[in-house]
């Protein structure tokens, strides 16, 4: 009789240790449990080919933006303007191709370069001019939104005819294109964050800014670089969305939706806002959970309104769990 609870206790402890050591695991468990729940409550519709594609298409842009957000959060910064960069970039392509006659591929490169420049500006304002990133990127959010709405008259535009066909398929229109881009981005930045000097220095700057400076790490360079990464990933997500829905819509990220979804995904995935720790794979899983929730609620026929309730609860719960887990990791006791 006594042996059983003891064994159960050890097993629970072991699972606990596993979850603590590999923190993405707990998020993965939630994502899987949610899939099982929605699969049963929708009589098997949830895991059909078509619906999985829907979920993938909802996950991909949020996850791509969330990867950039993770890099910044680990760095101890944030970017609220990244959603507008996503909305603006396809318009830049449209302007370049349709107004100035630039061929499609150079136009794409140019648009992404402009996004990188926006990230650079954010980084310089935050590091050299010492404006906290929350305020700095709030400013650039409104500024860029103004640019977007003024230049587009707040009307959607057509995908440039020259981009139709192969380029459009590769850049998001093909069924699984955006998911493949997303997985490549996640894999790449998982390696960058955990296996490269850039990642190590990003963690160091976010974990101990003074110490990193004293160790000779070029703190400003790291931060500016991560703002550029976030903006370029925003641009990529915006392009994929525009090509997928076959229209350039100023409202895609023009609201705060894409930015907030990405931050939520990063946080639910286990990235702390304090800087110094975070996970790219967690952000992907966080984005997946959010997509599952929205999609599953749709299928069940629950109105979209309670979705916000669940989202808010999920963010708070994962932050609390985060605090608890990091304390556990640090001290070995809660």
């Amino acid at each position: 009789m006594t042996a059983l609870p003891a064994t159960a206790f050890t097993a629970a402890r072991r699972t606990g240790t596993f979850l603590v050591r590999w923190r993405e695991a707990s998020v993965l468990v939630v994502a899987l449990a949610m899939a099982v729940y929605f699969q049963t409550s929708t009589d098997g519709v949830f895991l059909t080919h078509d619906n999985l594609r829907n979920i993938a298409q909802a996950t991909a842009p949020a996850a791509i933006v969330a990867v950039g957000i993770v890099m910044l959060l680990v760095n101890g910064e944030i970017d609220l303007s990244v959603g507008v960069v996503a909305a603006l970039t396809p318009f830049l392509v449209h302007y370049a191709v349709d107004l100035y006659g630039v061929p499609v591929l150079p136009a794409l490169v140019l648009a992404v370069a402009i996004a990188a420049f926006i990230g650079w500006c954010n980084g310089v304002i935050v590091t050299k001019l010492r404006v906290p990133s929350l305020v700095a990127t709030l400013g650039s959010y409104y500024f860029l939104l103004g640019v977007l709405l003024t230049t587009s008259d707040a009307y959607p535009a057509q995908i440039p005819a020259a981009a139709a066909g192969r380029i459009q398929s590769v850049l998001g229109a093909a069924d699984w294109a955006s998911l493949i881009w997303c997985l490549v981005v996640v894999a790449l930045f998982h390696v960058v964050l955990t296996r490269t000097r850039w990642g190590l220095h990003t963690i160091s700057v976010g974990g101990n800014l003074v110490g990193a400076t004293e160790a000779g790490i070029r703190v400003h360079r790291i931060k500016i670089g991560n703002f550029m990464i976030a903006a370029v990933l925003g641009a990529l997500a915006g392009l994929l969305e525009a090509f997928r829905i076959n229209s350039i819509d100023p409202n895609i990220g023009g609201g705060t939706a894409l930015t907030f979804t990405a931050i939520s995904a990063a946080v639910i995935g286990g990235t702390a806002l304090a800087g110094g720790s975070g996970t790219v794979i967690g952000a992907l899983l966080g984005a997946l959970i959010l997509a599952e929730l929205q999609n599953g609620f749709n299928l069940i026929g629950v109105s979209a309104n309670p979705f916000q309730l669940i989202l808010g609860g999920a963010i708070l719960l994962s932050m609390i769990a985060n605090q608890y887990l990091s304390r556990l990791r640090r001290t070995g006791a809660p």
Partner: protein
Amino acid sequence: MSSPALQVEHVAKRFGALTALRDVTLHLDRGEVLGLIGDNGAGKSTLIKILCGYHRPDAGQLSVDGTPVVLRSVDHARSLGIDTVYQGLALVNELSVYHNMFLNRELRIGPLLDNRTMRRRAREHLADMGVTIGDVGVEVAKLSGGQRQAIAVARAVYSDARIILLDEPLAAMGAKEGTQILDLIRALKRRGDVSIIIIAHNYAQVLDVCDRVNLLQHGTVTFDRPTAEVTVEELTDLVVAEYRRGRKE
């Protein structure tokens, strides 16, 4: 007669209206351990930050091995063999012991970190120095104050530094842990190829491990004597006398 490892001549530094260093002249011989003491605000930390390339002096000259140098950055000072263990230790809690040991001089294979080699070398090096850390893969956050200090010192030693600056290495540390750090410094001294400047508050410990002691007061060196010729009481009296003068003014 060989030139000193480090020579500081008439160095001054102001921060706006505040004069941190008025006129500092001191030297550090090869293989010597120099204790730098002084009251809070005497300019000790500013001096260290100039010597490690973090601040630039407004006036004065630094020479390394007799060659005049202008330290452009912390990296530049490091390339000249000057390494610093800061009061804050410059350790990143979220990183492992071995990543901290190699912070900003990581070993790589192509673009990727060579974790295996860094882990092995960190383990060997810490063992060489008599520092016992169970697992170098553990996060620094989990270590005790003494272990953290030991890692910071070991890191400076590992960097092939010829001049090591220790800013309050024994602050916020228990007697037992402090002893371990002092042992580490003595082991370094026996190696003979490293010159060390220690900033300290605890005069007994300074006399214990240093060859010579300098007193910094109001941004200038007012006292310079071998530790063999000075007692704790004498040092205390000097600082107390300064304190009394300060009260009268």
